């Protein structure tokens, strides 16, 4: 693209590389950032997986002590933090990055540099958390960080408080960015009710992030103040209320559950119609159910606290709201099933993972309803039954959906197909390993095995021991399955079969662009006249109402490209997101060890970085008003949180 090679002026030139290592470090391209999110997630996924391997090894037999209690506690805490904050959330962010602009017919997100900022903050926040292993021990107060245990210096929870705060900055910036992108950058004609369901779910998810993150930010600030500065928010000795932490944590934590599952629901809602060659059954219902789940999700947080110090009135109220949320969830499940009904199903790997998603998520949803039976919740709570439940939702749900998305959009990103043979092998071993690992946990929980215990007590009996052994075997299966996936991924990137532009006969706008997607996404911004616009450009209905292919297919837009000499303005690369973000390291360590020098250096670094960002010249030279200038204004505020 000649139009992206530009004159540089000003005192600090902007980087210009479009390829090579520097290009990745300085990129503001949503596609490159999405890819970086993906590979970073992959690394953290294997780290978190290794931690779960240690857990399963320890619990494979009763009374084992492969790990000491101290190490075990650090490992399960970091497993939770990793999988929630460093794997599932950012993997969704990878999809948001890559797909949102493409699906709404835009050339990038609203604030490309802020987008790069989000990525680097995520990466460094993750690295920051993991350095704790080498600096006196990782957090060991569990991912929910219940006070007052988390206030205690031997719990290393200062790393948790600061690390999650850093990750929160990343997510909050990304949430603002994606909300503005979706609301304000849709292609002409793309009304709300023509948006792909994935975009809807992305919008809801990002609103949930927007409103839930400030709550956890406050909770973490309080925790940090208590643990490091000697404040008294949660200290019962002076009248502080430990239950306040639980409320604040779950006010965030429950929307967080939907933050993790809704993107996967969106992905599945895109893949099922393609795999069934039929439109989504009840688009409006699926969309509204998703939005309803998101917002009712704010009103059910105390169901995580049914055995905590809350009274029967509160328990009853939250039991009711929790049951209520099962209704929109059920709507979605039935709509997905009926999307397949009467279709012509092609069992490609993404379709298999999507069907697996519906099936596994249903199990997680049903065990969720049993939690709402409060009297019995007191038996299930904090046992392996709950561990089974949320793994069915987050692993059988979110992760199955996200993996389906990886297989589905891989050709879009690389122009190559992933091996279907290996993909199916991955799916079946994954399904088997997953159910073998987490299925028995339902039973071991009801038979009395609590979670977060470093030792499986022999006194629970041989049945529980057998279930634990099965779970540990399941981990082995999952591990090999993950290797199959990794092998498939690497070999397909290197030497996968060419996919063509539209390998799945897909429906949404991103397939209108060539694969792999060119730097500027669309030669011409498409004008949208239908929901599933791309499909409607390929098929029309004949007089009897049956769909028939349009002979010209989708090629018209590519042909037109040459005819257009519209000036395409693409965001320039920038060093500043990376450079500024490095300031979180001194700030983070300064806050953990309460070193005012480091804190000062960190804040100065961030402020100087902000100025570098503001006064960075815009390469185009048409005005020196960077597109994402505004975010310089919120960046320090976000950093201050």
């Amino acid at each position, binding site marked *: 693209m000649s139009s992206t090679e530009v004159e540089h002026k000003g005192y600090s030139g902007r980087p210009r590389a479009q390829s090579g290592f520097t290009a990745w470090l300085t990129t503001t391209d949503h596609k490159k950032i999405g890819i970086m999110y993906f590979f970073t997630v992959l690394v953290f996924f294997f780290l978190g997986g290794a931690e779960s391997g240690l857990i399963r090894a320890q619990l494979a037999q009763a009374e084992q002590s492969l790990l000491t209690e101290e190490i075990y506690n650090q490992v399960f805490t970091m497993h939770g933090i990793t999988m929630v904050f460093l794997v599932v959330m950012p993997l969704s962010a990878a999809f948001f990055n890559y797909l949102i602009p493409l699906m709404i017919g835009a050339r990038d997100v609203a604030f490309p540099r802020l987008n790069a900022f989000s990525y680097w903050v995520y990466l460094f926040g993750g690295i920051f958390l993991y350095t704790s292993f080498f600096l006196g021990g990782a957090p060991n107060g569990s991912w929910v960080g219940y006070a*007052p245990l988390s206030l205690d210096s031997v719990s290393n929870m200062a790393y948790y408080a600061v690390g999650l705060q850093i990750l929160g900055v990343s997510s909050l910036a990304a949430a603002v960015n994606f909300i503005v992108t979706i609301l304000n950058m849709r292609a002409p004609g793309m009304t709300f009710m023509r948006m792909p369901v994935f975009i809807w779910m992305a919008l809801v998810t990002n609103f949930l992030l927007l409103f839930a993150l400030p709550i956890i930010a406050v909770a973490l600030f309080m925790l940090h103040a208590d643990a490091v500065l000697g404040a008294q928010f949660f200290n019962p000795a002076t009248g502080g*209320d430990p239950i306040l932490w639980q409320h604040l944590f779950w006010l965030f934590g429950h929307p967080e559950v939907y933050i993790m599952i809704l993107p996967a629901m969106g992905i599945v809602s895109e893949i099922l119609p393609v795999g069934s060659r039929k439109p989504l*059954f009840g688009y409006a219902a699926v969309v509204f159910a998703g939005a309803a789940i998101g917002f009712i999700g704010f009103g059910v947080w105390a169901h995580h606290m049914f055995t905590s*110090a809350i009274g029967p009135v509160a328990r009853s109220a939250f*039991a009711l709201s929790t049951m209520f949320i099962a209704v929109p969830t059920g709507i979605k499940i039935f709509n997905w099933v009926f999307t397949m009904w*009467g279709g012509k199903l092609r069992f490609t790997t993404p379709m298999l993972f999507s069907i697996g998603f519906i099936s596994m998520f249903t199990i997680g949803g049903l065990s969720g309803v049993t939690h709402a039976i409060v009297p019995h919740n*007191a038996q299930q709570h904090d046992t392996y039954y709950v561990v089974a439940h949320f793994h069915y939702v987050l692993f059988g749900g979110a992760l199955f959906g996200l993996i389906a998305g990886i297989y589905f959009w891989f050709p879009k990103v690389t122009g190559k197909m992933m091996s279907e043979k290996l993909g199916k092998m991955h799916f079946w071993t994954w399904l088997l390993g997953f159910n073998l690992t987490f299925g028995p946990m339902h039973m071991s929980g009801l038979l009395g095995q609590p979670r977060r215990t470093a030792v499986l007590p022999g006194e629970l009996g041989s049945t529980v021991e057998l279930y634990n052994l099965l779970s540990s075997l399941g981990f082995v299966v999952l591990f090999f399955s993950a290797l199959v996936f990794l092998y498939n991924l690497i070999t397909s990137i290197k030497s996968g079969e060419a996919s063509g532009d539209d390998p799945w006969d897909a429906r949404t706008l991103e397939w209108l662009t060539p694969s792999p997607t060119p730097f500027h996404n669309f030669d011409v911004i498409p004008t949208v006249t239908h929901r599933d616009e791309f499909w409607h450009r390929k098929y029309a209905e004949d007089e009897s109402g049956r769909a028939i292919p349009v002979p010209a297919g989708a090629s018209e837009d590519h042909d037109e490209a040459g005819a257009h000499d519209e000036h395409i303005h693409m965001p320039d690369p920038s060093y500043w997101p990376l450079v500024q973000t490095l300031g979180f390291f001194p700030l983070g360590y300064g806050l953990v060890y309460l070193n005012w020098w480091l804190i000062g250096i960190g804040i100065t670094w961030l402020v100087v970085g902000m100025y570098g960002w503001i006064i960075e010249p815009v390469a185009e030279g048409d005005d020196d008003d960077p597109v994402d200038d505004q975010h310089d204004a919120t960046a320090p505020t976000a950093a201050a949180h």
Partner: protein
Amino acid sequence: MREHATRPIGGSAAASRRRRLRLPLGIASIAVLLAACGDAEQNALDPAGPFAQAPHDLIIPVAAIALFVFILVQGLIIYSVIKFRTRPDDDGSLPAQVHGNTRLEIFWTVIPAVILAVIAVPTVQGIFDIMDEPDEDFLTVEVIGHRWWFEYYYPDFDIYTANEIVIPVGTPVRLEMTAADPARSPDQGVLHSFWIPRLAGKQDMVPGQTTFLNIQADEPGRFLGQCAEYCGLSHANMRARAVAMDQADFDTWVEQQMTPAAVPDEGTLAAQGRELYHDLGDNRPACASCHQVWEDGSRGPNVGPDLTHLFSRQEFVGAIRDLDEENLRAWLLDPNSVKPMQYDTPNQIGMPNLDLTDEELDALVAYLMTLDPS
């Protein structure tokens, strides 16, 4: 056996007995095991009292409904997958492009809502039933969660005990629970959760607040439980026991507990042990600075478990070990190897390593073995 190699003292006797049973069972009998409720006394599916029975009676129909929905949805998925797969002889035409069906969608919105409304009524009823004070006469026991053991205080009898709560059969027991009081011990108090699955669901214990839980056993027996709210380092080693006795046995037990501990005769090894108990010398903390052996005067709460009638209990160290001479020696010699403690950290919680010589150990164990009311 491996666990004996890695855990020097081995588990409780009950646990070892069961472990010996495990090997012959093998993988072949999975089907049988899946059907069985298991052989554990910590089983939520095998209620032994009304406060565990009521939730159980509530969950069974809900589980049945869930199972029905599960079969329905999975059946629909499997049917669709088989019926609507693309067949090899497919002509490549598109299927009918159905966009939705409002009537169907209303149907699967309303039906679940109705089912849930039906479930909601007994749920709310059950919440109040289980949490309210029992109607009949009940026994009150105060429970305090420490890192990492449970303490019980019977206000009616002024009895302190640890790890094992002794209750009369057929009588509701209302537990008034809290977590360690910082005024009393270096443990600032963290959340714990009291859970004896066969007697009731769990209830968290919160420092600075009182929470309540009703339990009742309808048969004599030893019911297992453990702390169910993550409470730090030795959370896994914080077990609970409920010992249910017939009223007569219970009365005897109360009487024993209300008797002061016997003082060993002068000149015996146990008497030496008693002196060491009060003063170890060499700037080592004395047992008596944290524990209590009530001989006369008033009883009061203390930092560590009350030892007055230590050997009226079957297990110790957070109920992870059988109480016998061998285990007691191992514990006194190196507590951290039995149950990790935080005495040397800023928290200063738990049993310190007292650097006992062999003679001191002999004397102390001899003394502790005399603390037996029977």
